[in-house]
């Protein structure tokens, strides 16, 4: 029994961490955050060159052939750095095709997605919090899809959109499809831009395997991993600030109220890393437990992230509420992680149902 990472996995995290430190330090991050479309070609190209574009794509299609746990480990590090860009949607699209595509579809799309030649994304949720595949209403008829998908990561930029449709199926729509309208959403998280996708008899291809639930579960795990990374980063920001900010002639970290709050913050997040590790591992190896573990990890970690974001603002005082402070960037990522694919209360109820409580 080994509840830990392999040397390769630790190396992977370190490599990505080094890349982020070098290619996406705070000034760069803020530039993209403030920018028009939350996308930086150099940064994305760098990630793709590292092989991050096709982490879970089989080697036979030009990918790294890794598993969800590896992908989640990378997402943790990207969450730590609040790295902006289309990685989340792209990864889920590659996973959807890998799990559910026909050999021909894989052949056609996966190499391009892995190499970064094409950008993928997923269009899952619909209005009224319809995140559950069973609740989707987009309709497919004679190779054409019609419907509204509410929050599509980097929908404006994606070449390929994996769209969730009624009955829990997935179809692929390309950028060039007629009947495809993509409008930017004025999203809260400027590091992960969203679009609203309207499909009006848009030509599409169905993925033959029914993997929508699996893709949703993978998404939950990745949001949980991002939340763990982001929350850990917030705690270190709060700790650093408290050590340096002085009031009444001493660092505020000297005040027991602040000191104990910081202790509570690290106690909230540090033990929770295993929740996303286990959920990813279950996705890869223990299918019976995967769905519930994913729901629990997402509910718990995204709620922690949000709470720690509030705490971090409070530790910072007024400055923490300014645009100028970097805290806001993670605060808004916390809002994204908490809300996207369904709020904690929703997934906690699923946790209860899936255990037959």
């Amino acid at each position: 029994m080994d509840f830990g990472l392999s040397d390769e996995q630790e190396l992977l995290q370190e490599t990505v961490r080094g890349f982020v430190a070098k290619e996406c330090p705070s000034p760069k991050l803020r530039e993209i955050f403030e920018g028009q479309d939350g996308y930086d070609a150099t940064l994305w190209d760098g990630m793709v060159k590292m092989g991050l574009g096709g982490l879970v794509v089989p080697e036979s299609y030009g990918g790294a052939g890794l598993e969800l746990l590896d992908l989640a480990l990378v997402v943790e590090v990207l969450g730590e750095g609040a790295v902006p860009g289309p990685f989340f949607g792209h990864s889920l699209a590659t996973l959807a095709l890998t799990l559910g595509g026909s050999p021909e579809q894989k052949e056609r799309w996966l190499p391009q997605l892995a190499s970064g030649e094409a950008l993928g994304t997923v269009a899952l949720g619909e209005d009224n919090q319809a995140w559950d595949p069973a609740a989707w209403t987009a309709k497919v008829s004679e190779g054409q899809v019609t419907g509204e998908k509410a929050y599509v990561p980097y929908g404006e930029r994606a070449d390929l959109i994996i769209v969730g449709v009624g009955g829990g199926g997935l179809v692929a729509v390309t950028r060039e499809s007629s009947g495809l309208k993509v409008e930017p959403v004025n999203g809260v998280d400027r590091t992960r831009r969203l679009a609203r996708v309207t499909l009006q008899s848009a030509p599409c291809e169905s993925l033959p395997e029914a993997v929508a639930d699996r893709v949703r579960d993978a998404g939950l795990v990745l949001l949980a991993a991002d939340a763990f990374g982001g929350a850990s980063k917030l705690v270190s920001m709060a700790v650093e600030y408290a050590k340096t900010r002085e009031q009444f002639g001493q660092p505020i970290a000297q005040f027991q109220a602040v000191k104990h709050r910081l202790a509570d913050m690290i106690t909230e997040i540090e033990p929770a890393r295993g929740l996303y590790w286990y959920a990813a591992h279950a996705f890869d190896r223990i299918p019976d437990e995967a769905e519930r573990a994913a729901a629990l990890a997402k509910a718990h970690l995204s709620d922690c992230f949000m709470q720690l974001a509030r705490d971090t603002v409070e530790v910072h005082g007024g400055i923490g509420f300014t645009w100028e402070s970097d805290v806001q960037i993670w605060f808004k990522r916390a809002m994204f992680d908490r809300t996207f694919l369904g709020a904690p209360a929703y997934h906690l109820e699923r946790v209860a149902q899936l255990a037959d409580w």
Partner: protein
Amino acid sequence: MDLSYSEEYEEFRREVQAFLKGYWPLQGDEAKLSHREQATLFRERAIAQGYAARAIPKRYGGSEREADVLKARIIGEEFGKAHAPGDIRSIGASMLVPTLLEHGQEWQKERFIAPTIRGEMVWCQGYSEPGAGSDLASLQTKAELDGDEWVINGHKVWTTGANIADYMFCLCRTEPEADKHGGISYLLIDMKSEGVQVSLLRQMTGTADFCEVFLNSVRIPAENIIGKRGEGWNVSRSTLKHERNMIGSAEASRATFRSLLKFAKGVQLNGRPALEDPVIRQRFAQIEGYVTAHLYSGYRQLTLAARGQEPGLAAMLNKLTSTNIGHMLAKLAFDLVGDQALESPSGDEVMNLKPRGGQAWVSQYMWSLGIAIAGGTANIQRNVIAERGLGLPRDRAVQRSN
């Protein structure tokens, strides 16, 4: 205990209602004036009638009536129902004017009070600095007397309304040799003075409700000081005392509670009306307990004040109670807003987009509650409650640094 008003007060209420019926909204040509002009005009009439500026002597432009919290409350209620402009709620009227009345020289009162309570002169408050937040008395902005002028250099933050203010009341260090609290003076700065530079401080919501003010060799007349040199700290404390409000924070909490409840009635969560969700119902009922307690505590403080008694400990708790309720409401709002939490809380100048959907105001208000939670303010409040309210020992670091 009698929750009705006595006949005397019901009569007073009818008078107020009759006045409002006759005078608001303005009629004829007056209705064509700008809203601000209309408000000033109406306010003058309300003052003449004794319905505004009641605590201000007539010679400074007030209506000089005997303190009567119940009448004040009736006026507030009736003006509120009629959406009529009553006492101006500016920082100048609520903080500077009481300070002037207590510590100002005669010429200062004559010059500043009347235009402030009419809303013609707008003030901002220059207290906080980048290095002086909860430890306000550590402020570093310097004022040196040069002939008959103060020369001021420094940097103020969180200055609400500095971009539209005519004047700033400001704490500056004038006696560098004195101890921490003893070296501060309370000065009035004309915002049009040379060397005053105001910039907006953008919040994480994307909007800018606060300013920074840079003071670069700003010169003001030596006479623009309230109280004596080095007494500014105590002068400003009396301002903070006036800032306290026995009932306002509770009524604001209740208003927010009600508007969130109203919002919840129109919201679907996971496929059913949010208010049918037992968890949401429990949370609303729980918060209603706090909101109602807060409100009744305000009524009780009001009653004690009307009887000439001290509200004591209860009054020290109002602010922290409001903050706690704000916390609970913001968290609940967060869970009600659903996927709109994915959308920006404010218009976005970069993408030139407005928030989608008529209910986007909720996310706006969810964020604005967020402001209340920021800062070491709640911890300072806890110190005050513990030390002054419960008689617990003072904080050693705070004591040492004084």
